[in-house]
C-alpha cells in the first residue's frame, strides 16, 4: 500500500468553465489613496474570464471575506483573484475563505498592489492605477489556467534521527524525548559532548564544559526514548520526509537500518588549523591555537600563580584574533576550495577574552597583549570581559585588516610585529613567551552526508537553511533540519536555542500520523511526455524524478514520473522539457506566458478568453503512490 496519497478536497470548478471573481482592496486608504480601485475593478469587469469584479474597503475583514464566500456559494464564480497587500500577509487568509466556501483553495491568486504599487508610486496615481490593472489582469490569466491542487499526504514514522552528539545534538534529542518522540542519536566518536566537553570553563556560569555536558548526558542515558549509537556513522540515506531510511554502520563494520520521519543534523564544526608557518604556528614552539591553550588551562599547567609550558615559565602572552576568520583575498592564503574564510567566527573574541580573564585571575603577573581587528563581544554581558581585561592591565592593539601581525622566532622566544591603528599606525615589536592564535570555526567535512541527500551548502561551506530569518533551521530538503554550528559559527547558547527550535520543528512535523505537504512540486502530464529524459539530468534531488514504463496503445513506453515527497519544486526540470509536459504545479510556464501577455496588452478587453489546455495530470494518488514504491 502506498504511503503517500492526495488529500481529497471538494472542488466545484470545472476545467472548461472559468468564472473568475476579482476583489480589489482599498486597504483603508493604503491602496485607494493612490490607486483608483474602482477603476481597477471596472477595467477587470471587462476581462472575458471575469464574472464579478468588486472593490471593497478591507477585503481581509470578515465582511470582505464574506463577499468572496457568498459569490462562490451562489455559483457565480469558481476562481478568485484578490488585489491587495503582499501575499505573505493574507494569501492563506483568502485560501481558507475559498475552502470554507467549498472551493479548492488553490484556485486562488493574490496580486500585490500595495507594497509593490501604491506604496512605491505615490506621485503618479494614473500610472499606478494602470499598473494595478495590468497586474490584476495577469493574476486573472494565471488563475484561469490554474488546476485544483491537492495537498500531498505522507505517512509518518514518529521517530527522529539526530546526527551528531555534541551539545546541540544532545539538547535536541532530550527536547524531542520530553515531547514523547523516540530518537536515535548517532555520534561518530566514542563519547558525547563534542567541542563543549573540551572547554575548561564557559561564560557566564564558569562551569566546566564537562559539567555542562554531564547534565544533559545524565538525562539522556536514562531516557528510554533515546537510543545512543557511539562510534557510528550514517553510510546510506534514502526516503523522504515522514519516512527516511538510514543505514548506520559502527566502528566494527556492523550495519543496521534506522527509520525516521525527520532528521536533525548537528554535525558541528572543526577548529581552523593554521598552515605550517602561518603566524609561526608549527615552526615556533611558542605559538599555539586558542583551543590548544584552553587544553593547557584544563590540564593543570596553570597553577600556583604560574603558567608553565614545557620547561618555560610564561611571563607574557600575545593573543592574536581573527586567525582563519574574516580573511581577505590577496592577503590570506585560500582554503582547499580556493576561497578564503571571509566570515566572522563570532565566538572567538569572547572566548579569547574569557581565556585572558582566566589567566589574569590565576596568574595576575603575566603580561597580556591582545591584537585584534576589532573586538566583537556581541553577546549579553560579553562586553564585560573586555572591560575587565582592560581594567586589569591587558594591552589592546588594533591591527589593520590588510596587514596582519607577523610572528618571528628569536632564539626560542616569539616576537610579534604589528601596526597599531589606535596609535595612528605606530609599528610595535612585542616579545612574548607565548603567542595564542584565536582560530575560528570551519565547516566539518561531512561531504558524504551532503552527497547522500544533495544538502544545500552556502558560500561559506556551512550547511544552508531555507531562509536565515523566516525558516532559520529548515533545509530545502524537506524533513531535514539543522541544529548548532553545522550551520555556521554559533556560541553554546545559540547552539542550544537552534537545537530546541530544530526539535520543535521536527516534533511539529511528526505530531500527526500524516504530514500534509504543499502541492507545489513538479507534475508530469503523461500524454505530453515523450520520454526524452532531458529532465532527469536537471534534477538534483535523488529519486524525485524517475523514468517508468507505462502502457500506451498496447505497447510499453517510458515516461517521466515525480515522487512529490522528494521533489523540492525548483522547476529546473520544467525549463528543459520541449513539449512542456513537466511543470511545477501552481507555477506552470503556460501561466507565466499568459501573465506576460496581460502585462504587455493594450487593455484588458483585448485579452482573449482563456483557452485552457485540456489537462490530464495523472491523478495524484496513482502517480505518487507508484513513484514511491
Amino acid at each position, binding site marked *: 500500500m502506498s504511503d503517500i496519497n492526495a488529500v481529497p478536497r471538494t472542488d466545484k470548478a470545472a476545467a472548461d468553465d472559468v468564472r473568475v471573481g476579482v476583489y480589489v482592496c482599498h486597504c483603508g486608504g493604503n491602496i485607494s489613496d493612490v490607486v483608483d480601485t474602482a477603476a481597477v475593478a471596472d477595467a477587470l469587469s471587462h476581462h472575458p474570464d471575469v464574472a464579478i469584479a468588486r472593490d471593497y474597503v478591507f477585503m481581509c475583514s470578515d465582511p470582505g471575506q464574506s463577499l468572496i464566500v457568498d459569490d462562490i456559494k451562489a455559483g457565480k464564480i469558481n476562481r478568485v483573484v484578490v488585489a491587495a497587500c*503582499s*501575499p*505573505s500577509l493574507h494569501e492563506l487568509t483568502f485560501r481558507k475563505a475559498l475552502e470554507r466556501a467549498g472551493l479548492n483553495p488553490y484556485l486562488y491568486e493574490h496580486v*500585490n498592489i*500595495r*507594497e*509593490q*504599487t501604491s*506604496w*512605491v*508610486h*505615490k*506621485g*503618479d496615481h494614473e*500610472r*499606478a492605477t*494602470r*499598473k494595478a490593472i*495590468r*497586474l490584476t489582469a*495577469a493574476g486573472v490569466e494565471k488563475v484561469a489556467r490554474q488546476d485544483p491542487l491537492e495537498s500531498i499526504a505522507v505517512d509518518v514514522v514518529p521517530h527522529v534521527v539526530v546526527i551528531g552528539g555534541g551539545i546541540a545534538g544532545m539538547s535536541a534529542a532530550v527536547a524531542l524525548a520530553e515531547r514523547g518522540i523516540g530518537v536515535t542519536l548517532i555520534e561518530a566518536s566514542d563519547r558525547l559532548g563534542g567541542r563543549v566537553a573540551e572547554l575548561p570553563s564557559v561564560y557566564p556560569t564558569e562551569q566546566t564544559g564537562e559539567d555542562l555536558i554531564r547534565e544533559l548526558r545524565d538525562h539522556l542515558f536514562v531516557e528510554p526514548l533515546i537510543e545512543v549509537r557511539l562510534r557510528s556513522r550514517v553510510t546510506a540515506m534514502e526516503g523522504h520526509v515522514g519516512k527516511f531510511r538510514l543505514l548506520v554502520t559502527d566502528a566494527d563494520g556492523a550495519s543496521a537500518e534506522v527509520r525516521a520521519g525527520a532528521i536533525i543534523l548537528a554535525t558541528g564544526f572543526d577548529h581552523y588549523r593554521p598552515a605550517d608557518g602561518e603566524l609561526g604556528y608549527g615552526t615556533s614552539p611558542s605559538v599555539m591555537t586558542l583551543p590548544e591553550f584552553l587544553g593547557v588551562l584544563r590540564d593543570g599547567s596553570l597553577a600556583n600563580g604560574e603558567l608553565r609550558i614545557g620547561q618555560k615559565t610564561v611571563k607574557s602572552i600575545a593573543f592574536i584574533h581573527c586567525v582563519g576568520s574574516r580573511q581577505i583575498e590577496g592577503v590570506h592564503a585560500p582554503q582547499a576550495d580556493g576561497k578564503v574564510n571571509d566570515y566572522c567566527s563570532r565566538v572567538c573574541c569572547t572566548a579569547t577574552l574569557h581565556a585572558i580573564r582566566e589567566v589574569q585571575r590565576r596568574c595576575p603577573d603575566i603580561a597580556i597583549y591582545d591584537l585584534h581587528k576589532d573586538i566583537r563581544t556581541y553577546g549579553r554581558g560579553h562586553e564585560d570581559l573586555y572591560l575587565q581585561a582592560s581594567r586589569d592591565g591587558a594591552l589592546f592593539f588594533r591591527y589593520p585588516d590588510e596587514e596582519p601581525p607577523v610572528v618571528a622566532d628569536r632564539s626560542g622566544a616569539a616576537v610579534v610585529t604589528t601596526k597599531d591603528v589606535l596609535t595612528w599606525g605606530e609599528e610595535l615589536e612585542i616579545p612574548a613567551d607565548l603567542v595564542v592564535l584565536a582560530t575560528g570555526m570551519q565547516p566539518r567535512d561531512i561531504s558524504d552526508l551532503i552527497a547522500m541527500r*544533495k*544538502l*544545500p551548502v*552556502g*558560500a561559506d561551506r556551512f550547511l*544552508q*537553511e*531555507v*531562509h536565515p*530569518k*523566516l525558516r532559520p533551521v529548515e*533545509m*530545502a530538503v524537506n524533513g531535514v533540519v539543522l541544529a548548532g554550528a553545522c550551520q555556521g559559527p554559533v556560541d553554546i547558547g545559540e547552539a542550544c536555542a537552534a537545537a530546541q527550535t530544530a526539535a520543535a520543528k521536527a516534533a511539529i512535523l511528526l505530531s500527526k500520523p500524516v504530514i500534509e505537504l504543499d502541492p*507545489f512540486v513538479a507534475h508530469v502530464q503523461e500524454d505530453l511526455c515523450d520520454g526524452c529524459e532531458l529532465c532527469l539530468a*536537471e534534477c*538534483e*534531488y535523488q529519486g524525485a524524478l524517475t523514468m517508468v514504463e507505462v502502457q500506451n496503445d498496447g505497447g510499453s513506453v517510458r515516461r517521466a514520473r515525480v515522487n512529490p515527497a522528494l521533489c*523540492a*519544486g*525548483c*522547476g*529546473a526540470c*520544467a*525549463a*528543459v522539457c520541449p513539449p512542456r509536459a513537466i511543470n*511545477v504545479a501552481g*507555477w506552470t*510556464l503556460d501561466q*507565466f*506566458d499568459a*501573465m*506576460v*501577455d496581460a*502585462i*504587455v496588452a493594450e487593455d484588458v478587453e483585448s485579452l482573449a478568453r482563456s483557452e485552457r489546455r485540456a489537462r490530464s495530470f495523472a491523478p495524484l494518488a496513482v502517480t505518487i503512490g507508484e513513484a514511491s514504491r
Partner: protein
Amino acid sequence: MRSEDDLKILIITTLISSYPGANTVGQARLQYSPGTYIIRVPDPVMFPDDFYIQSLKKGIDGIIVMSSGSDCPYEGAYARLSARISRVYGRMKELGIPTNRLKLTTVCTVCKAAFLKEIREMQQAVLSDAAAAAA
C-alpha cells in the same frame, strides 16, 4: 522618443528572497517607476531560454532576474540559471536584441538599494538603446 513612462520592465523575483526584498522597498516607501512588473516564482531556473526571448518580442522592454544567487536553497539551481542566461545572451545577439535588456542579478530580502539600482540601470539601458536605434 521613448521615455521612462513608456517602459515595461519585467522583474522576476524569488519567493524566498527578492520578492520579500521588493516588499521591503515598499515598506520603506521608497519610490520607483510604475513601469515595473514584478512576478514571483519558486526559482527562475524554471524558465526555458525561449521564455526570455518571447517576452522581449512580445513587448517587454527589459527583464531583471533577481535571483537568490549563491544563497539559493535549491541545489545547483543558480549555476543552471546562470548558464541559461549566458545561452540566452547568445541567442539575443543572433537575433539583434541588445543583451543589456536582460540582467541576472542577486537581490535578498533587505537589498533595498540594490533593488532600486537595478531598476534604474535597466531603464537607462533600454532608453539609451532606444535612442541609439532612433539615431
